[in-house]
């Protein structure tokens, strides 16, 4: 995702150090859990001209 954001000109890309385990123990079985899926927050800025 970082590369895609930078490719469209976004800068100051930052990912949260915190990750959330949002699929483990969900009510239904999930392929997401099998791939070690984690939630993450991120931000980026569109430069001023």
């Amino acid at each position, binding site marked *: 995702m970082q590369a895609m954001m930078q490719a469209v000109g976004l800068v100051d890309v930052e990912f949260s150090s915190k990750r959330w385990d949002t699929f483990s123990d969900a009510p239904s079985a999930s392929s997401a859990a099998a791939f070690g899926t984690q939630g993450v927050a*991120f931000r980026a800025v569109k430069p001023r001209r």
Partner: protein
Amino acid sequence: MAVPINVDMQALRSAIQDEYAEVATTPEKGFHFHTGRPLARLLGYPAEVTDPLPEPVIESFAGVANPFIFGELQPGETVVEIGSGAGFDAVLAAQQVGATGRVIGVDMTPAMLAKARANVGRVGLINVEFRRGYMEELPINDASADVVISNGVINLSPDKAAVFREIARVLKPGGRVQMADIVVTRAVPEAAKENIDLWTG
């Protein structure tokens, strides 16, 4: 460089809409992801913010992280939410930007749009609107947003490069993204990437 994924976009969108229509109408059913107040607690949304919300506003929440961890939005800002679902994050955003700000939620699932519109009425907000559209073709004017938010949605697009081009298009110069999505810690086989059932479950 993003690698194109060989998946039928229309079939994928249809499968995702079916899944999220169920999240809108039967949130208690139980899905392969967590939902509602327990999820909001897991993701660190403050109880003083979520506790006052009527159950329909939060019960279909299906985010994956907390885009507000980087700070609250500012009064007066114009916010676009990609994949606004039943409106939980949009309501929080609208409360943060206040009466001088504006939130536009975009979602492709009619059942979610209907629930989101009802939800903003439940909490008495008039600075939020919801539009039907796709994240690869946002129904938003160029350079009109101070902030683009999203929570667990971009991973559902097989053309993420197009999504980020749209984000860059709608942001004002100096605007920002505050988003949440998923990362995988184990390699996903190419065959799995082309299996629509795995995109939605």
